[in-house]
């Protein structure tokens, strides 16, 4: 039954009339093969199958046996047995006569894949099953071409749309749906899981109702555009544009799409003429063909003289942009598609029947929800628009499946905090569609609205200041998509530009500037307040298992500043909540170190704070320019720690803190990069080492095992002297955990060798010697040739330490070196 609720007619025939929804599903006389399809009666489905199986066991009558197997395969093609019965049935089918066994099993698998049908088998299926023939159906396109597809009982609209799209080389598939027509009825099958055979079965039943034989039911399947996306661009896919163009042309002719102004009609016909005949207007051709072009409803019966229209069309033709600029015909088609999208949004909608059960009262409870590229409309059966919501109005959409019912709950929440609740068989489909459009709009949006006042504490002019409800236009090519994974955005508000924290704003699902009345809604209290943790990746139970520094912090961290409890915070666990928790992620710089033991040393305290600031910058939690060279920020983070063991602990605490309850996936990933780099540099003190190992092993990130291995190696070999070399930083940023370094030999050959963070020159020498099968490594050494100089790497020096030191030194002594190193001039001074 569900299949018939998205009803909509297309202007296919002269008997067009404007009833948008109808039912094929008026009282249907019980078919001989009427199959119980209530969800509660799964039991009776098994019962039916059992009965058939029983009659097929030791059945002496040949004809009865054959008919029994046809019946069984028909049933299997419509519904699957319960899990309990599945294996028995499969075994029974397999042991069946060779003519039916593989055939039935194939159908069983298909039904299992695509789900239970809602209608009894069609006559078409019955015939096909009797002869075990494939079913071929014809799909008609709007340009009158056809395509034959092979289907079976389980075929869905999605499968067929997919096949057609591949055949037609259609790329922009969104919004193309399968339609079925019969007499004056039209029904959309959508492009999802609806079964095609259900629709055909309904058509046959409807034909029978009208006193026709089901075998002659003149149903027809079409493939047409049902809905546009707001960001639809006809230039993107010429195949899609061609199909839509023909749909519009046909709709114009039969009056499905009507223009308000005669001038528009003339322009559209002129455009068609241009597509068909090119830039040369031949009055003769127009005169003979005008009958084909004119909308039927504009021509009176027996009217032969269309001179007035011919004049108008010729006039419009000369004004066409395509004609004047000699654009290719495809551009004319694109123009037509754009015109249709903008002029008849409601005609390109998906329609759903729904029953309102909650929220602000609409004039009637039974509504039709129409969704198109401009928004969401509630319509009554007289086609009166009861309520119109733009996508900007919608805050949340969700659905709830109601067990043992065909009606499910749909909840639409607006930015004004109104909550519309509906019962609808396709709650999930509506929800998915709206969500898809909202997401697509937000990704492309350059408009955000403040949901909280914001002013940077330092009043620095590089930060934006704004009030709740202010509109901010993103700048520098930033879009909503980029903003979703960032902690800082950049945009314009009240004529000034600057950085702002993304958690203070809401991305508006709009491609054009949203109207002011939307913004008013955001100014009100209680509407979209400070963001609740959205979509936590891990649930609470999983989070509890994650080891944190909470206990370690109680003992070793300085006491956090007292923070005033805000109104919104929950007053449970009051004692803890009132203190700043120093072991949890933050995007604020610190002004004191985390470790108590560092507090007394002013210099180390300073180093600790600046390394934390560098961590915030590296992870994108603080606005910062792109690193001048890949290891700029990592140098700031690790340099001081390499010289002092207490700072080593502090840096580990800082990284662990930023990986604790960090809700921003991009920031968290970068945090893991820092953890990976740190573990290859040095280990913390023994007590923190235990914490670090627990911290790592309680997490599932792919870096955990590599980090533990690196810790082990660092422990064995000892700490590095320099922060990670640029190659190490770049490698882990590209998720590469193996670095191969090219080594040259005097005989003009070279080879690549793996070098990791803890590889010393002597380790590499040994690896090379054994690869080259040298007798021993005595007297061999690694040299770095840079600019005009050659340096030997001391045997016990870490390979990357040496390179880092060298590059630093080059940078300091020869500021111009970066640009000059390319010169091959050798100077001996």
């Amino acid at each position, binding site marked *: 039954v569900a299949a018939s609720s998205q009803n909509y007619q297309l202007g296919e025939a002269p008997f067009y009339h404007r009833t948008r929804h109808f039912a094929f599903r008026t009282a249907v006389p019980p078919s001989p093969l009427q199959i119980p399809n209530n969800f509660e009666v799964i039991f009776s489905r098994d019962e039916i199958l059992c009965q058939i199986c029983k009659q097929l066991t030791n059945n002496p009558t040949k004809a009865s046996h054959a008919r029994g197997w046809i019946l069984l395969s028909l049933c299997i093609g419509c519904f699957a047995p319960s899990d309990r019965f599945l294996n028995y049935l499969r075994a029974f089918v397999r042991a069946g006569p060779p003519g039916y066994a593989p055939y039935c099993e194939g159908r069983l698998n298909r039904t299992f894949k695509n789900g239970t049908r809602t209608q009894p088998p069609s006559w078409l299926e019955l015939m096909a099953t009797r002869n075990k023939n494939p079913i071929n159906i014809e799909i008609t396109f709007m340009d009158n071409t056809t395509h034959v597809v092979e289907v079976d009982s389980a075929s869905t609209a999605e499968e067929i749309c997919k096949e057609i799209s591949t055949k037609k080389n259609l790329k922009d598939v969104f919004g193309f749906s399968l339609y079925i027509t019969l007499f004056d009825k039209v029904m959309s099958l959508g492009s999802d899981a609806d079964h095609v055979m259900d629709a055909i079965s309904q058509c046959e039943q409807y034909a029978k109702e009208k006193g026709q034989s089901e075998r002659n039911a003149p149903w027809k399947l079409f493939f047409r555009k049902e809905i546009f996306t707001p960001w639809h661009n006809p230039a993107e896919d010429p195949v899609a544009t061609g199909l839509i163009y023909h749909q519009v042309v046909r709709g114009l002719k039969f009056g499905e799409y009507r223009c308000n102004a005669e001038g528009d009609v003339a322009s559209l016909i002129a455009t068609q003429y241009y597509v068909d005949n090119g830039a040369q207007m031949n009055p003769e051709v127009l005169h003979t063909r005008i009958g084909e072009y004119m909308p039927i409803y504009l021509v009176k019966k027996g009217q032969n003289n269309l001179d007035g229209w011919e004049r108008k069309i010729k006039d419009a033709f000369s004004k066409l942009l395509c004609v004047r600029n000699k654009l290719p015909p495809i551009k004319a088609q694109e123009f037509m598609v754009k015109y249709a999208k903008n002029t008849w949004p409601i005609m390109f909608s998906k329609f759903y029947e729904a029953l309102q059960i909650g929220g602000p009262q609409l004039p009637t409870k039974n509504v039709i929800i129409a969704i198109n590229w401009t928004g969401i409309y509630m319509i009554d059966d007289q086609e009166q628009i009861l309520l119109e919501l733009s996508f900007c109005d919608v805050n949340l959409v969700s659905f709830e499946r109601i067990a043992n019912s065909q009606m499910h709950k749909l909840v639409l929440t607006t930015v004004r905090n109104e909550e519309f609740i509906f019962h609808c068989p396709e709650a999930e489909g509506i929800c998915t569609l709206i969500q898809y459009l909202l997401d697509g709009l937000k990704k492309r949006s350059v408009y955000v609205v403040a949901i909280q006042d914001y002013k940077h504490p330092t009043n620095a002019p590089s930060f934006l200041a704004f009030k709740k409800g202010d509109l901010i236009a993103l700048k520098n090519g930033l879009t909503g998509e980029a903003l979703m994974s960032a902690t800082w955005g950049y945009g314009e508000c009240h004529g000034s530009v600057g950085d702002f924290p993304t958690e203070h704003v809401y991305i508006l699902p709009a491609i054009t500037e949203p109207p002011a009345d939307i913004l008013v809604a955001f100014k009100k209290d209680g509407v979209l307040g400070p963001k609740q943790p959205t979509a936590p990746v891990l649930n609470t139970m999983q989070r509890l298992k994650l080891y944190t520094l909470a206990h370690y912090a109680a003992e070793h961290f300085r006491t956090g500043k007292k923070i005033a409890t805000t109104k919104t915070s929950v007053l449970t666990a009051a004692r803890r909540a009132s203190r700043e928790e120093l072991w949890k992620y933050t995007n604020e710089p610190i002004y004191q170190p985390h470790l108590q033991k560092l507090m007394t040393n002013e210099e180390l305290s300073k180093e600790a704070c600046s390394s934390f600031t560098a961590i915030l910058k590296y992870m994108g939690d603080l606005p910062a320019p792109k690193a001048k060279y890949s290891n700029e920020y990592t140098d700031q983070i690790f340099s001081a720690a390499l010289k002092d063991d207490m700072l080593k602990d502090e840096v580990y605490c800082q990284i662990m803190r930023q990986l604790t309850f960090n809700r921003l996936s991009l920031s968290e990933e970068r945090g893991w990069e820092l953890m990976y780099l740190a573990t290859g540099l040095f280990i913390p003190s023994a007590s923190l080492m235990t914490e670090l190992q627990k911290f790592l092993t309680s997490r599932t990130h792919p870096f955990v095992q590599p980090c533990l291995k690196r810790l082990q190696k660092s422990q064995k070999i000892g700490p590095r002297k320099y922060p990670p070399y640029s190659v190490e930083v770049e490698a882990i940023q590209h998720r590469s955990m193996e670095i191969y*370094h*090219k*080594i*040259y*030999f*005097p*005989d*003009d*050959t070279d080879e690549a060798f793996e070098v990791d963070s803890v590889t010393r020159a002597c380790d590499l*020498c040994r690896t*090379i010697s054994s690869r*080259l*099968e*040298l*007798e*021993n490594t*005595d*007297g*061999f*050494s*690694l*040299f*770095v*040739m*840079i*600019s*005009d*100089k*050659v340096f*030997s790497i001391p045997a016990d020096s870490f390979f990357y330490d040496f*390179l880092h030191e*060298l*590059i630093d030194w080059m940078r300091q002594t020869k500021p111009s070196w970066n640009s000059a*190193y*390319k010169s*091959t001039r*050798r100077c*001996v001074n």
Partner: protein
Amino acid sequence: VRINRHDDVSTNVVVAGAAPIQAQYQVFFMKKLWINAVPGRDTNADQIFHFHQELPKYLRGFHKCTKQDATKLAAIILHARLDNDHSQVQAAVQHVKDLIPADLAKAASSSEWKKSILSEYKKSGNITMEQAKLRFLKIIYEWPTFGSTFFEVKQTTEPTYPDIILIGINKQGVNILHPQTKVCNTLRFGSGGFKCFSFRMFWQRMNSQS
């Protein structure tokens, strides 16, 4: 005192015709200390490292070498380059500079060098590249300056020495060489028990001993 370090490494790269440096740096693996470098003991080390590192030093003229030896070695170098592909010998011998020590280039005319090298080459018959490289090393190995790292040093304190002298350090000790005559003054390690804190100190110490 100013030290101009003529490292064998960099010279070698240039001789080998390394491509213009595109990366910021290149990492080489090479012999640094020639303590156990006895030709013939480690075939791969001879073929990949010893020959290719010793040849440029030889061609720069850091060793004391007779004209006769130079002719013989030039023929061996040709063999090492050509690996018994005798058809290329006429072309290869054109670059006399790549075959004989720089300080001997003027000892004879270019055509004389070519003539004597070619006759030496023909006399020696078939020698593979590997054999040639080893033969070269075995001859050089007999010289006191084998396996040295050379430094061109400008000295300012000792009037009896020329301004620029050549210092070669190898397992024998420190060889102080006259840049032209290569008259060798070897200071053996352990003999005087000196320490090399800095070049200046080392220089003074050496002065006091001579």
